[in-house]
């Protein structure tokens, strides 16, 4: 059972990394969106392994179900199949390749630094007793509506503002 969980961790983790790499490797945003859903599914499996089935469920329902559909809508609406190949000035020196190569080096450096920091820590084994972890929806709901009630209400205002903002920004100008 523990062996099975360990195997699942490595498989799902590798799946999430490969899918995320393919997301940023695609020129067609349509494939990027679909591959990102694969990555989210793998992460959702990891949440189940971590004893957080509620988070796994909202990961699928909200992320894969709502946010990615929003992205798909916009990709289909704008109908730009691939990004422009680098041309002219931007294909050459400062405008294009330089900052992009710098960005790649920067993100590789980020991984190296984090790996270095985490290697200094002793490996802390995950607590095994899943029953001791308060992961039920009941526990989350009590905590959310008792201790974090204000943050919850503030979120609803945020969503309202975002909705109004999206409508105003995407509306056609009447001139």
């Amino acid at each position: 059972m523990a062996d099975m969980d360990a195997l699942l961790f490595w498989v799902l983790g590798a799946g999430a990394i490969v899918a995320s790499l393919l997301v940023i490797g695609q020129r067609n945003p349509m494939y990027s969106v679909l591959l990102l859903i694969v990555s989210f599914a793998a992460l959702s499996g990891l949440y189940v392994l971590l004893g957080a089935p509620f988070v796994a469920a909202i990961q699928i329902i909200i992320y894969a179900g709502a946010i990615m559909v929003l992205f798909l809508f916009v990709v289909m609406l704008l109908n730009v199949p691939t990004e422009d190949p680098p041309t002219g000035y931007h294909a050459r020196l400062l405008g294009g390749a330089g900052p992009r190569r710098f960005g790649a080096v920067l993100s590789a450096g980020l991984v190296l630094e984090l790996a270095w920091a985490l290697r200094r820590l002793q490996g802390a084994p995950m607590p095994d007793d899943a029953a001791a972890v308060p992961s039920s929806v009941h526990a989350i709901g009590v905590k959310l509506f008792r201790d974090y009630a204000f943050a919850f209400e503030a979120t609803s205002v945020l969503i309202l503002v975002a909705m109004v903002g999206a409508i105003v920004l995407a509306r056609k100008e009447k001139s």
Partner: protein
Amino acid sequence: MIPEPTLNSYLMLSAVLFAIGTAGVFLRRNLITILLSVEVMLNAVNLTFVAAGRFYHSVEGQIIVFFVMTVAAAEAAVGLAIVIALFRHRESLNPDAFTSLKW
């Protein structure tokens, strides 16, 4: 015998995913793919929160993920609205096409 995943394994996985998202923001020249890379970064952070919450026997890690997802939804809605407005303006999704504010 497969090595048992420790807290560090989860943190490392999340660090790698975050770096992939960063690389995507820098390397792609398509506004939609850049927004997708930001979603990858947000998910990496969510994984950290859930793993730490499990490690400390706390439910707070899952609650903060709930809030991060809400903010991600708001960000996606406003970001995509801006992308639509920009596309209408220039007929392009290439961030290099929007340089009016460049000094």
